[in-house]
Each structure stands twice: as structure tokens, then as C-alpha cells.
């Protein structure tokens, strides 16, 4: 049986991969996908804590509630974010973050 440590380690590594993608990649759609990876890593942590903290012989369902809300917010965020990317592409014909420097000070 895998213990709590294994789940936390795996979820932390997934978060690190997502963070690396956000910092290193220059394609704004891939940056967005890496944001989703980070949210999913947080979800895995929540589910792991919910399972390992049993209440009356059942998993702690309050943790799973939070996961549902995170998934819903992530879905809404993807919809709005992709609409912004499409509008950005229409205005600038690029989604490469190095070409989008008009707000640089």
C-alpha cells in the first residue's frame, strides 16, 4: 500500500513540473496547460489528505468538496482564458510571450 508520503511527493513533483512549464515555456497556450497541471497537483494533495484522514470509517468528504469547487473554477478559468487568448491572437497575430511586450515598463 502506498503511504501518504508517496502521494504528497508525487503531487509535489507534478506541481514542480507545472511551475517549470509556466516559467520556461514561451507559448501562452502551453503556459495555460501548465497552470492546469498545478491545479491538478493541488487536487491530488486534497484527495490524499481526505482519504488518509478517515472520519467514522469514511474518507473526509469535505476535502473532496473543495476538489469539486477547484475543478469548477478551473473549467471557468480555462473558458475565459482561452477566449482572452483568441482575442489576443486576433489583435496581435502571435501567442509568443516574448512578442507581447507592450506592457513592459
Amino acid at each position, binding site marked *: *500500500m*502506498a*503511504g*501518504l*508520503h*508517496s*502521494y*504528497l*511527493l*508525487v503531487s509535489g*513533483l*507534478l*506541481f*514542480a*513540473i507545472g*511551475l*517549470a*512549464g509556466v*516559467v*520556461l*515555456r*514561451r*507559448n501562452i*497556450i*502551453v503556459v495555460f*496547460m*501548465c497552470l*492546469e*497541471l498545478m491545479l*491538478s497537483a493541488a*487536487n*491530488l494533495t486534497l*484527495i490524499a489528505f481526505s*482519504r488518509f484522514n*478517515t472520519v*467514522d*470509517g*469514511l*474518507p473526509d468528504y*469535505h476535502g*473532496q*468538496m473543495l*476538489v*469539486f469547487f477547484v*475543478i*469548477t473554477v*478551473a*473549467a*471557468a*478559468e*480555462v*473558458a*475565459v482564458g*482561452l477566449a482572452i487568448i*483568441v*482575442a489576443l*491572437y*486576433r489583435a496581435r497575430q502571435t*501567442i*509568443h510571450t516574448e512578442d507581447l511586450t507592450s506592457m513592459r515598463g
Partner: protein
Amino acid sequence: MPLPLFWFFALLMLVGGLAVIILRNPVAAALSMVASFVGLAGLFIGLDAYLVGIIQILVYAGAIMVLFLFIIMLLDLKTEQKRAPRAVPVVGGLGIVLAFTIQLIGVLGHVPGRESEPLDLVAAAANQSGGIQDKLKEGRLPDVNLVGDLMFTQYNLPLQIIAVLLLVATVGVVVLSKRQSA
């Protein structure tokens, strides 16, 4: 969850995640992200969170990734042409990630580990009522019933707030994607 299965799904998830940031083609990145989410759903189901696992497949691997692929194909993106990576962001980014990973391993070394206790369904039945109690007595975990019970009683207000959020997001997307006519 048996250990070999855990490592299979965990590796599927991590390799998929790595492929997202390594592959240059956005379509390939999106497809490897689907693999990553399938591995994650496997881990969820191994943690007795059946409904969350199914939702993960349906919402993330299904709806959200199809939306990503749709946008990638709509914008007709080609594989990124190689640009000379600038040294400062790459070194800084890798430094942050490395520091995070070292921190993570350091913290996990100090926290006492925990093994999962088996679920005690018969004892849990005493605190429940109705159909949930019947299923628990039979030794089945009525995951969907328990989640739904909590969501529509104790979490009713957050549920309604999230519904309003979805409505706002829908209206916002329509407004954003309308072509501005001056």
C-alpha cells in the same frame, strides 16, 4: 491501492506532465496532458474517490482538453520555431523549481508518514440514514450519494455561488469573443 498500480499511474502522470513542457508541438503537448490526467484519475480512484476520478476524466481529459485542442487548431499554430533561449529566465526558472523540489523533499523527511486505514463501512453506517445506510451495510461505498448529500446540504451556498461564477464566465466568454465593431 497496490504499490505497482500506484507507481504505474504516478509515472504515467509525471511522464505526461514532463512531455507537456518538453514537446515543442502544442498538439502533442495537449495530448500528453490527456495521458497525465488519465494517470491522475487512476490515483483518485485508488484513493476511493470514485466520483472525483470520473469527473477528472470527463471534465479535464474530455471537455477542457478538447477546448484546448480546438483553440490550437483554430489559431492554426505551427510547431514553435527554435529561438535562442535567453539564459537569465531559464536559469532563474530552473533555480526556483529546484529550490521547490529540495524544500519538498526536506519537509517530507520531517513529517511523520501515514499508512491508509481500511474504510470501516459497517461502523460508518450507524451515522447515516436511508439508502446510504443500506448500501454501507451491504459493504459498498456509496460515493456519489455521500458527496451529493454533503453538497446539497452543508455546501449549498458555495454551490450556488459557483453556479453564478459559471454564468459570469459564460457571459464573459461571449463578450470577449465578439468581434469589436467600432
